[in-house]
């Protein structure tokens, strides 16, 4: 394959006359780590919903691995190597920890176990063993048979990430993976994502924590009111006047820019 793994071209969508995404384009190279940032309501989650096919764009194209996937139904997009997590954890509450992860294997062409092969009648199946191994590898230290609904937030967040990984994606979309995590958990998450990225998985991460964004990603795309206002290095993003204005409002942005000048 030549060209980027993911290519978004002139994407737009409106809800009830309001343009929520407005002509957004960006590329993401295979193995890259791109942060998608922006103030609340900028349209970051909507971009994820467009990429995964929950919504259909009004205009524009999405290419994954060189193929246009505009008309690929949401159910089949995971087959193109795209998996995602959700801003508000969406685990199946009545499934156990390991069963949730096993759901991540569902669409894999090499999935362990056929549709009508028992998963658990005589103890551990290959699918279950694989899911348990992945949980252990990712440092989720809970009983695999436990109900997910009673687990602490940080652990559920990890399980959701492991579920996405169980699909063996090439492209992983993470919607605010560090939100609600404490410092230790955020540190663990960073190491976790580093390892995933080093294994060749391409990351597209929505995140508010700028420290995390800078240490994980070298490049950021900034959205404001559905428009792309910045696309470049994460090191310079906080000096960009448009970005400052989006986050702080016009007056504060001016002050900060002056301050930056004075320092320089």
């Amino acid at each position: 394959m030549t060209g980027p793994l993911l290519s978004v071209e002139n994407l737009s969508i409106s809800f009830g006359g309001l343009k929520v995404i407005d002509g957004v384009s960006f590329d993401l190279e295979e193995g890259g780590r791109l942060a998608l940032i922006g103030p609340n309501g900028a349209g970051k989650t909507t971009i994820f919903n467009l990429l995964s096919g929950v919504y259909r764009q009004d205009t524009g194209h999405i290419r994954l691995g060189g193929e246009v996937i505009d008309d690929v139904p949401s159910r089949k997009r995971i087959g193109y190597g795209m998996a995602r997590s959700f801003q508000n954890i969406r685990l199946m509450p009545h499934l156990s920890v390991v069963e949730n992860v096993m759901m991540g294997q569902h669409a894999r062409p090499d999935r362990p176990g056929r549709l009508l092969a028992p998963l658990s009648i005589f103890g551990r199946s290959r699918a279950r063993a694989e899911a348990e191994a992945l949980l252990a590898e990712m440092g989720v230290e809970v009983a695999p048979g436990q109900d997910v609904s009673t687990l602490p937030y940080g652990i559920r967040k990890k399980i959701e990430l492991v579920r996405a990984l169980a699909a063996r994606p090439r492209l992983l979309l993470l919607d605010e993976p560090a939100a609600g995590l404490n410092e230790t958990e955020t540190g663990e998450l960073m190491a976790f994502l580093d390892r995933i990225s080093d294994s060749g998985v391409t990351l597209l991460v929505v995140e508010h924590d700028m420290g995390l964004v800078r240490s994980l990603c070298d490049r950021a795309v900034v959205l404001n009111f559905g428009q792309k206002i910045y696309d470049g290095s994460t090191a310079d993003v906080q000096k960009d006047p448009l970005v400052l204005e989006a986050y702080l409002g016009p007056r504060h942005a001016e002050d900060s820019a002056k301050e930056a000048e004075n320092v320089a």
Partner: protein
Amino acid sequence: MSGYWSGIITLLSINVVFAYGIYLAVATGQLNLGGAGFQALGAYAAAWLCAEQGWPIWATLGASAVVAGGIGFAFAFPILRLKGVYLVLGTFAFAEVVAGVIINSDALGGAMGLPVPEYIDWHVPAIAAVGVALFCFYLMSTRLGLAVRAVHDDDVVCDLLGVDVRLVRVALFALGAALAGFAGGLYAHAYTYVEVQTFNASLSIYVLLYVLLGGAQTAWGPLAGAAFFTLLPELLRNTLPALKSSLYGLFGADGSMSPPDESWRFVALGVVTVLMMVFRSEGLITRTMVERISHPFRSTKSEAL
């Protein structure tokens, strides 16, 4: 075996098969309140094929499942687009339509019903119930069964994980309709008479209650629900008159005492239902409970707290 016990086993077995039929739909998150309609389809298919066409019992029983399953499949495509209370009303309306068609059909005996010439004793329903239960346990233990439970919890996420949500729902609904029809076929031959009044709205409500109160998370639920609610009225049949006469005795009443009428059994059932809804809304048997029983020494507490 006494007639009393063989009667109870027959009823219990038919209810278990029927409950599994509704369970398969409920397990995917679809409330099927048209159970009586599918059971009626199976019962009348078996009765008519036996009485009018002289089919042997194994063939009429098979046909009862195929007819109800086929109609359930055709019905599922449009109806499963409905959500929540609309789906419930849709399935309910379906059962009413089935009853209406039967009552206006001369070939099916109309309001008079149809006699069924071939009789089966309790062995056949009992074996059928065991077979159906084993089949459902197997089904729920497969990857498809896991997908079924996942669809129940979150259909949007399942879709993104690659599950064909619609296929799962239609397939399980149709399979459930086939089991409900099979229960109807068993009913026709066990009671050697079918009349449309048997397959009324309260039958649909009761079987849905068996499933919801037994618990729809595992295949144990419908078994527990059907057993509990089939055997409870029998228990009450004996204890209620005793209770009544002791109460009367307490107040010094004597003379002729009528046994409490049937309606009291339903009052008691209603009370149990309300209590269950309040105190154990996920049903009698949950996945966590089964997990704990099957791995008694494995800690289910989080170790990373």
